[in-house]
């Protein structure tokens, strides 16, 4: 019953927040409307999201978000430096293959997205079995270390979010 009514509780919360952001004012009426929307829309769209990934809103999640946000900022500076100052022929571009432990498509996507938004790496493809990510690194002296960093810094944390 609950599952039918709230197919994606996290989504419901997100939508309520989004609605409040859109409405741009904190009124009771707006909140009621937001709740209605947050409940109704996931029900309407649930056929398009048949899987139910379990997302935990624990500290792990917040830590993960913080780490990623920080890395995005750092990444940008790093890339900026490369873009501005590094000569093209000095670039140490490399392909990385990141073997995956996470299995849910949501988690893999999250990881891939994180990789893309963080320093010097863009995830380009998934293996056809879904167990490895193809990542392009703009400038990396040690590809293996980079892979290890990705698995440690992001994948390990993600596993806790998608428990």
């Amino acid at each position, binding site marked *: 019953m609950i599952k039918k009514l709230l197919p994606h509780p996290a989504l419901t919360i997100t939508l309520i927040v*989004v609605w*409040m*952001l*859109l409405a*741009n004012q904190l009124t009771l009426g707006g909140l009621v409307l937001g709740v209605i929307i947050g409940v109704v829309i996931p029900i309407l769209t649930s056929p398009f999201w048949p899987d139910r990934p379990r997302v935990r809103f624990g500290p792990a999640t917040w830590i993960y978000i913080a780490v990623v946000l920080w890395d*995005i*900022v750092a*990444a*940008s500076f790093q*890339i*900026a430096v*490369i*873009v*501005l100052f590094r000569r*093209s*022929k000095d*670039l*140490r*571009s*490399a*392909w*990385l*293959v990141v*073997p995956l432990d996470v299995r849910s498509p949501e988690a893999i996507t999250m990881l*891939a*997205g*994180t*990789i*893309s*938004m*963080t*320093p*010097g790496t*863009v*995830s*380009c*493809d*998934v*293996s*056809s*079995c879904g*167990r*490895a990510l*193809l990542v*392009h690194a*703009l400038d990396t002296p040690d590809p293996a270390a980079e892979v290890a960093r990705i698995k440690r810094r992001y994948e390990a944390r993600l596993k806790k979010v998608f428990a």
Partner: protein
Amino acid sequence: MMLDAGPIEILISAILVVGGFFALVGSWGLARMPSLMTRLHGPTKVTTLGVGSCLIASMIYFPATQGKYSAHELLITLFLFLTAPITANMIAKAHLHRQGRSIDPNPMDDIAEGLPETGLGTGWATFEGQDAERADPPR
């Protein structure tokens, strides 16, 4: 005016300068990098952050100057951060597909020898999907 600049103004200005700078750098990277894979990095991260900065600046600016609180910018940022990696991923896939396994046969690029194996016995999705054989059209 400049003399009146309070800390908030300075903060906003700084964020704006940083935002503009990142936006420019991202596009500069796009323009000057030697190959598509290297060009992909600038816009994905730097430009997105540049836009994000502008949005944050806006988010601070309106409450600070006009007393109008607005969180709309947060939504745009959310959207951009959600979509930027997917965009990059799709462009990369399209590029991989168009160029074949030998990526970026560009003399400026040192990864011309091709894609690595997955190491799992299977291929990359772009090249070897469920119906790889059928999909290759007759030459």
